[in-house]
């Protein structure tokens, strides 16, 4: 009996050996993706991570990976739940030890929970437009990157936009800040308070409790206050409710301006007519007119390798945002390979260096076909944000139309707030900040 088994066993062993050799021969760059496609925010995750994965496949199909290194990924479902996010991260960590792209969780809570862990494990944590915003100060947070822009810079940019609209003077105007009463909604307050002191406008803060599907009292208050503008920081179901409530009390929608998590198709379409004229900030435009999005549809979906089951999400704000996140991540891999060896898989530590030394100008964005998908980005040790610019877009009833060019927040006002907060964090955690002037 045993004798008969032996040849079979050795055949299996041989074929296994051959298989594993084949895997070693081609370099692979691994992307751990703790994402979400089910749960309360599943719809948002489907579009974002669909875009992210489509771009990775696009690079694989179009140029055979980054300098010949194939991009691979593994998804783990977090359901936007902090504990599950940590579990996912721990599960994928060992696989990411050899090579790891930036980790995008698209959840402030999860990224908060991972900030210390990722620094310990030397894995780069990207938080594009969410997360711990004082990680802009890279001297305290070497492995965390709130790339492109932060809530505070966004709030400041929105104020700047309103100021330009009001002929450069906001003095004596009244602005209501209507926000989701959570970590997400409260992040921007500190920036708006600073702006209101600087520009001498009245700031009225009105919180909305989670989930925000009942806002009668808040809008009654807004009607009494008669503000010139409402800056709006909603999330999920709260967004459409606010738009409908605004219509009910007769507050003009074109005086309402939202954050980038309130400005996707998912937010305005359910509000129907009530959303027309409403404005929101964004760092990426919607639509398939962006060359790279059109090319993804042709190349990836043409080859039947598209990640989206519902292809109507192609070209939506969040899909394009997922692509923009992937563009940045892949550019970071490219940058790392320039320094540490082309055609090799990059470790988390090497990718971290690249994320800190990104320099993507308009010419490069154009070459990637990603014009308007991202502003120009130049990061450094003391600026992990790299841009701080947003565009304002307006919903015309059928699609989002950009109504401004790139607007940069008031960096001189906002960045010192980050540094102060990062300093406090370093003190609490016993971290000695790096000396950024010595970083290369």
């Amino acid at each position, binding site marked *: 009996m045993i004798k008969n088994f032996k040849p079979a066993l050795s055949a299996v062993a041989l074929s296994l050996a051959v298989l594993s050799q084949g895997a070693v021969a081609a370099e692979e760059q691994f992307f751990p993706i703790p*994402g979400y*496609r*089910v749960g309360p925010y*599943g719809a948002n995750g*489907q579009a974002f991570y669909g875009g992210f994965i489509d771009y990775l496949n696009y690079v694989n199909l179009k140029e055979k990976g980054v300098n010949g290194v194939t991009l691979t990924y593994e*998804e*783990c*479902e977090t*359901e936007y739940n*902090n*504990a599950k996010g*940590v*579990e996912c991260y*721990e*599960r994928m*960590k*060992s696989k990411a030890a050899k090579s790891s792209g930036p980790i995008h969780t698209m959840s*402030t*809570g999860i990224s*908060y*929970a991972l*900030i*210390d*862990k990722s620094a310990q494990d030397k894995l780069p944590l990207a938080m594009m437009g969410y997360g*711990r915003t004082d990680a802009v100060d890279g001297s305290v947070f070497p492995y965390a990157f709130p790339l492109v822009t932060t809530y505070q810079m966004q709030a400041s940019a929105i104020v700047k936009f309103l100021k330009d609209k009001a002929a450069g003077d906001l003095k004596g105007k009244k602005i209501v800040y209507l926000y989701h*009463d*959570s*970590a*997400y909604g*409260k*992040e921007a*307050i*500190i920036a708006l308070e600073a702006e209101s002191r600087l520009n001498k406008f009245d700031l009225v803060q009105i919180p909305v*409790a*989670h989930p925000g599907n009942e806002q009668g009292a808040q809008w009654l208050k807004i009607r009494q206050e008669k503000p010139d503008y409402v800056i709006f920081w909603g999330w999920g179901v709260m967004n459409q409710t606010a738009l409908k409530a605004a219509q009910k009390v007769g507050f003009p929608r074109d005086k309402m301006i939202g954050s980038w998590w309130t400005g996707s198709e998912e937010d305005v379409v359910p509000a129907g007519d009530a959303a027309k004229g409403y404005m929101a900030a964004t760092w990426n435009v919607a639509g398939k007119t962006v060359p790279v999005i059109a090319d993804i549809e042709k190349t990836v979906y043409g080859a039947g390798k598209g990640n989206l089951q519902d292809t109507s999400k192609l070209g939506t704000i969040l899909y394009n945002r997922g692509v923009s996140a992937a563009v940045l991540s892949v550019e970071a891999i490219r940058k790392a390979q320039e320094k540490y060896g082309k055609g090799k898989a990059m470790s988390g530590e090497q990718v971290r260096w690249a994320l800190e030394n990104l320099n993507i100008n308009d010419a490069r964005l154009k070459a990637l076909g990603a014009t308007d998908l991202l502003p120009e980005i130049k990061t450094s040790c003391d600026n992990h944000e790299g841009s701080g610019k947003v565009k304002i877009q307006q919903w015309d009833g059928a699609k989002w139309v950009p109504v401004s060019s790139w607007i940069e927040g008031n960096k001189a006002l906002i960045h010192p707030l980050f540094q102060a*907060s990062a300093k406090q*964090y370093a003190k*609490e*955690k*016993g971290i000695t900040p790096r000396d950024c002037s010595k970083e290369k």
Partner: protein
Amino acid sequence: MLYREAGQFKTTYAADQQLFPIRQDRIGVLVLLAVAFFGVPLLASEYWFSAILIPFLIFALAALGLNILTGYAGQLSLGSAAFMAVGAYAAYNFQLRIEGMPILLSFICGGLTAAGVGILFGLPSLRIKGFYLAVATLAAQFFIVWCLTKFPWLSNNSSSGVISTQQLIILGYELKTPVEKYLLVLSIVVVLALAAKNLVRSSTGRAWMAVRDMDVAASVIGIKLMPTKLLAFAISSFYCGVAGALYAFCYLGSVEPDGFSLEMSFKILFMIIIGGVGSIMGSFMGAAFILLLPIFLDVALPFLAGIFGLPFSSATVSHIQILVFGALIMFFLIVEPHGLARLWQIAKEKLRLWPFPH
């Protein structure tokens, strides 16, 4: 044959009153503790510590807390997560505001603060019972989360309301690795679990059970309802509070009020329902079932799909996982409504007769 108490004579009161009267149980518990303290740290990987064992122990402790209140004293509560939040935020604040505060003392103070809040929200239990009380404790759930969001002082004026916990330093030694954190959590959980085991067979525990079974009868035989019920609330909240502090300090490292949601309270309630209402052991079994099964399915399903060549995306896996999980809960509730602990008890009884059942 192996599990039989025949021949074990108790010759002293101490021997008769000990925590585990059967010798095999004592040996079993000792072996279990030895494995948990020495075997596991040698064998388990970092993933096991930080993603499975630590949360398992912490939720087992919270479930134990709820079990004291619901299982032993019969007061239904939906506020466990809120009491955990109180424990977490209180421990954080004690650590932050009192210079040189030992971390273990902070945990205890966190637990005591939660106990105080628990007594406050336990007051309605003197007048209302059953499902109506559950609704009253629901108020605790919403009020506490609101309160932690509303007053920035509680989160040290953090702009987002999220707190990042301080370092874990015990007698000058900093606990950093998952193994060290695991051992700390394990020690605390073992001490508290043994204390609970002792407590429920004391006069206090018997008073609780009398109140649970029929409060009018209990008061007739001389049990004062008010102190008994409030004590149950206090001790239960203390356990939840310590679990919350461990959740913040040893597991996630940073927490926000919204993390302690009603969903988490339900999860803890399901743990004791599945594990066994009114059983210390059941708290652990329930926590293991509720926490580990989804992870197991999460890992096993893609593997099975790979074998059969099914095209499963991670979203499909998630959906199937929820389905299977729900089905299993229903299965267990139908087959064994008294929980996993009851299954364990039946197994023990069968073992006593084995191999000659009459």
